[in-house]
């Protein structure tokens, strides 16, 4: 285990050092990319000065809104859909092809329909996230042992009670995987839309800084988004592993 961590640390450190060396040696010129230590310094300065807090807050709020909506909608749909064989068979080809479709292509259309506000961005986030949640939930519900369902029936639980007390608790690891996917997709959807066209938000500020050759703003913001998404992903993965370990799987 520790050998593994050491290896990973070496890869990351090696990569950063390589970038640093290439920047300092002038192979990567200053206009393309400042050396990593300057980026980190700029990031600290940015946070200390409280710059872009409004944009960061707006982006994160939209990511959370998209995540929460897609998650609740997806888990509910997945749980209900499990009981309807035909509906599921009909939707199956949609699920199989869904992630091949460039959902971002719908963004201009949404802007035309809803106006250039938070709405289209959150909607893109939801659209990207919701199907992953539905599919993962279905996957989990499929694995509920029949004996548990029978027990619920014997005890006279209503469908809602069965879902809340039996099915969903059993599926907890799957629901966590779904949360991980949904959060990643919500991030990609919201930040990506801000990037393409928006009036505020982290993605917007990065593209604005890019247009103005403002590397001192662009690189720290990019670094911050990468760190935020990796941290969120790492946290949920850790939780997922501990849950699986407690259940004695793996």
């Amino acid at each position: 285990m520790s050998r593994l961590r050491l290896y990973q640390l070496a890869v990351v450190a090696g990569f950063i050092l390589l970038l640093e060396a290439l920047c300092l040696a002038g192979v990567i010129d200053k206009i393309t990319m400042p050396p990593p230590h300057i980026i980190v310094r700029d990031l600290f300065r940015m946070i200390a000065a409280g710059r872009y807090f409004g944009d960061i807050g707006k982006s994160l709020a939209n990511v959370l809104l998209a995540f929460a909506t897609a998650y609740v909608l997806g888990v509910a749909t997945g749980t209900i859909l499990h009981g309807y064989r035909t509906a599921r068979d009909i939707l199956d080809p949609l699920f199989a092809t869904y992630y091949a479709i460039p959902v971002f292509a719908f963004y201009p259309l949404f802007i035309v329909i809803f106006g250039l506000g938070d709405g289209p961005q959150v909607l893109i986030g939801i659209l990207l996230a919701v199907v992953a949640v539905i599919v993962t939930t279905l996957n989990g519900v499929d694995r509920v042992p029949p004996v548990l369902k029978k027990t619920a029936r014997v005890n006279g639980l209503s469908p809602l009670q069965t879902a809340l007390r039996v099915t969903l608790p059993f599926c907890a690891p799957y629901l966590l995987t779904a949360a991980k996917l949904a959060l990643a997709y919500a991030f990609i959807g919201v930040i990506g839309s801000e990037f393409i066209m928006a009036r505020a938000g982290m993605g917007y500020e990065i593209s604005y800084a890019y247009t103005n050759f403002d590397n001192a703003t662009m690189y720290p913001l990019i670094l911050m988004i990468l760190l935020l998404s990796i941290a969120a992903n790492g946290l949920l993965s850790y939780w997922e592993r501990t849950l699986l370990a407690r259940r004695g799987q793996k």
Partner: protein
Amino acid sequence: MAKEERAPLRHTIILIVGLFLFWQLAYLAVGDVALRSPWQTMRFLGTLMQTDVFWLHLADTLKAFAVALAIAIALGLLIGFALGLHRLSGDAMEPMLVALYSIPKITLYPIILLAFGVGISAKIAFGAIHGIIPVALFTLSAIRTIKPILIKTGRVLKLNPTVMVRAILFPAAVPEIFTGIRVGFSLTLIGTVLGEMFAAQRGLGYLLMNAISLYNIDLIMAVTFLLVVLAASVNALLLAVDRRLHHG
């Protein structure tokens, strides 16, 4: 047996009809201000296809996409094989690749633009970035799950590494690798179009963003429709091959 084989086709047809119905209803609800009906969209797409400009944009997108896909598959296979054959490297790099997979890669696009300049090479690089990781991850897991007896047989026969890869590892891993290429195909296309939407002077993504600044709803709907149909039908085809490889 024959009946069972026809069932998925029937479901797909019901699904497509349902989606068109939904589209028509949405059009009736929203109206001409922001939407076009399926029929209007397809008619506009028909006239669009008679213009030279459209084919220029399409050709540019497809060219960038084809090169990006070739790079993604080549590099993805290379990384996947290298990591799959070395236990420690594979164990260490797999979670890192998964983490990279889940970051919003669009944030890296300005860096690529600064490095390559606005043009086809930036699009290619951005598309390739999207495709490399899935191809690498699926190849890695394909190599890992090869039955040990096959590899042992190769060792007993004293095959050299090249023959080992060509005669044993690759054929045994093909179904999984194909799944990776299928996913990589979709993501590379998404990446290429996304790159064009952010900064480009040509391509379908550019056409889409240009249409929005002109408030040309016909054009937006036609291009979006074309992209969706293109992506969905190729994916359906690849999915069919994929399933045959896994069960055949």
